[in-house]
C-alpha cells in the first residue's frame, strides 16, 4: 500500500501535524472512491468535511484509523505512518477516537462498561481508575445518571453522547466524527452538537464529517468540500462560507443552506 516505506515511522514534525495524508488513492473494485487526497491537519485544528453523499468523505475519515485500507498513498497520524504492521495500526487507533453515525455502542454492556472496556482491556488501566475516568466523561456529556443502564434504554441523542464519552475515555489526541447527527431524530441533534462544541473548546484535534453548517460555522477552523472522491476545496471557515472559490462548492452550499 504505502509507496515509500523507507522513512516509515519517522516522526513528521511532532507537535505540529496531527494528520498528514499524501497522494491517497482508493478503489472499491473498479470504482475510484478516493482520488489523490492530500491533506495536512495541524494539532488542535478543527476541520469539518462536507459534500454530497458518495463523495468519499466517510471513506477518507475511515482511512485515518485504517478501518479501510487503500491502494496508493500514505497516511501519517501523530508522526506514526500507518503501514500494514498490525501493531502500528493498533497503536494509531488507540490515539484516534471515532464516533459513528449509528453510535455502535456495545448493546450487551451498560453505559459505564461501554466506557471502561477499552481503558481496562487495551490500556490496562485498573478498573477503579477506569470507572472514575468514565464517570468524568459521562458527566462531561451530561449523562452520569444513565451509567448503569443498557444502551437500548437510552434515546438516540443520549446514545451518541455515550459514544463520544466512550471514545474520550481512551484520551485520544484526535477525534473523528462520521456524520454523528445524521441518524438522530431532529430534536436530539442539538444536544449532540452542543457536546461537540464544548469538546471543541478543549483543543483536541477534530475531523468531522457533517452537514450541520451551523455547527461548522461555530467551531471549524477550516472547511473541506469533497465531491466524487476528490477534495474540491479546502478553505478557512469564513472564506468558505462567504466567498467559496470553486463553482461546485458554491452550488452545494446554495443547496444546503437554502
Amino acid at each position, binding site marked *: 500500500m504505502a509507496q515509500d516505506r523507507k522513512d516509515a515511522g519517522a516522526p513528521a514534525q511532532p507537535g505540529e501535524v496531527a494528520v498528514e495524508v499524501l497522494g491517497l488513492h482508493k478503489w472499491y473494485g473498479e470504482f475510484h472512491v478516493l482520488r489523490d487526497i492530500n491533506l495536512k491537519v495541524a494539532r488542535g485544528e478543527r476541520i469539518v468535511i462536507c459534500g454530497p453523499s458518495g463523495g468519499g468523505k466517510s471513506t477518507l475519515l475511515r482511512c485515518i484509523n485504517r478501518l479501510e485500507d487503500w491502494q496508493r498513498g500514505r497516511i501519517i497520524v501523530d508522526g506514526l505512518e500507518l503501514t500494514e504492521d498490525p501493531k502500528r495500526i493498533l*497503536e494509531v*487507533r488507540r490515539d*484516534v477516537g471515532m464516533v459513528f453515525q*449509528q453510535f*455502535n455502542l*456495545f*448493546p450487551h454492556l451498560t453505559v459505564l462498561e461501554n466506557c471502561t472496556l477499552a481503558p481496562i482491556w*487495551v490500556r490496562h488501566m485498573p478498573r477503579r481508575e477506569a470507572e472514575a475516568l468514565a464517570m468524568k466523561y459521562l458527566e462531561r456529556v451530561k449523562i452520569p445518571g444513565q451509567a448503569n443502564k*443498557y444502551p437500548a434504554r437510552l434515546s438516540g441523542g443520549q446514545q451518541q453522547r455515550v459514544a463520544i464519552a466512550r*471514545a474520550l475515555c481512551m484520551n485520544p489526541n484526535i477525534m473523528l466524527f462520521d456524520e454523528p447527527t445524521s441518524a438522530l431524530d431532529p430534536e436530539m441533534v442539538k444536544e449532540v452538537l452542543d457536546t461537540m462544541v464544548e469538546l471543541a473548546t478543549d483543543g483536541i484535534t477534530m475531523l468531522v464529517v457533517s452537514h450541520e453548517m451551523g455547527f461548522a460555522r461555530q467551531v471549524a477552523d477550516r472547511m473541506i468540500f469533497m465531491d466524487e472522491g476528490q477534495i474540491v476545496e479546502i478553505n478557512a471557515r469564513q472564506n468558505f462560507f462567504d466567498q467559496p472559490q470553486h463553482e461546485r462548492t458554491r452550488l452545494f452550499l446554495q443547496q444546503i443552506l437554502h
Partner: protein
Amino acid sequence: MAASSDEPFVYVRSFPAEKLPPPLAATGAVGWLRANLFSSPTNIALTLVCALLIAWAVPPLLRFFFIDAVWSGTDREACLATPEHPTVGACWAFVRVWLSYFVYGFYPTGQRWRVDLFFLALAFGIVWLLRLSAPRRDIAAFYFFIVLPVLSFVLLHGAPPIGLVVVPTALWGGMLVTVIVATVGIVFSLPLGILLALGRRSELPVVRLLSVIFIEFVRGVPLITVLFMASVMLPLFVPDRLAPDKLVRALVGVAMFASAYMAEVVRGGLLAVPRGQYEAARALGFPYWRMTGLVILPQALRVTLPNIVNTFIGLFKDTTLVFIVGIFDFLRTIEAARADPHWAAPTTPITGYAFAAVFYFVCCYGMSRYARSVEARLARSGRR
C-alpha cells in the same frame, strides 16, 4: 369532552382524561379463558379437539403406568397376568431390581461409591457454574474445567498410589457413561465450535480452508460413521500400545461431531452481529482476540443461545449411538436387561423404555428450561 372554544375546528383539552381500570372481561380467569381458549370459532374448535384428545389418551396411560403397575417383585412372575390380576401395567419391579446396573453398568459393586462421588462433584460443578447468582463463578469455571476432569479421571479410572483400584472403562456403563459422553461432548463442542466458526470467517486462507474442510467433512458423515472410524479404523493405523482407550476414542468422535455442528450454530450468531460492532471495537484499538472475546462473542452467543441448547439436546440424545462401538451407555443397559429371561414378561420392555424416556426427558427438559430462564433474564435486563 368540552371543546373550550367557539371556533369550529379548534379543540383544546381543558381537563385530563380520567384513568379507568380495564373492563372486567379482559382480566382474571374468565378473561384469560376467553382470550386464550375461546377467542374465535377456530380456537373454540381446537380447544375442544385437544380436550377430547387428552381425555382419550391420558387415563389409559395413568392406568398402565401407575394404577395397574407392579411396584415390587423378584422375577417375571410378579409381572405376569394372573386370574386375580388380569391386566398388568408397567413392571416397575424390573426397573427397581436392575436400577444399579442402569446407573453403573458393570462397575464393581464395592467401588460404586466412586461413581456416586463423581455424580455429586459434577452436579455441584454444574449448579455452581450455571446459577447466574452464584458467588465467584470464575472459581466455578476453574473447578469445572480444570479440577473436575482430573478429579473425575482419578475417581473413575482409579489411582493405585492412593488406594483406588483401576477400573477399566470396559466395565463402565449405564447413566455413568451417558453422562460422561454427553458432558465431554458439550464441554468440548462449544469452544471447539467457536474456534471453527471463527476459523471459517478468518482472513487467513489456510485457516479458513482447514475449518471448512473439517466442518463440511464431519457434518457430511453420519455420527455412526465417525464413531466407527474412531474405534475400528484408528487401531488399523496406530500400533496397539499407542491406541487410546475405546471410550476415549468414542469421546473424541462425539466431540468432533458435535463441534462441527456447533461451529455452524455459532457462525449463525456471528453473522447476526452488526458490522458496526466490529468497527467500534477496532476503532478503540482492540486487537482481534480481545475484540472477539469481549465484544463479538458475547453478542453472538446470546443471539444464538436457543440454537446452542438445541444442539446440546440433540447431542445428549445422540450419545445413545455409542452402543454401536460396544459401549454400554444407559439405553444399551436397558436393552441388555430386558433380554434377561428372569424378567421376560409382556410389559418389561415397555417399562424399561419408559424409564429411559423419563431419564432423557428430564435431562433435556432441564437444559431447555435453563436456557429459557437465561433468555428471560437477558430480555429483562434490556439487552438486545
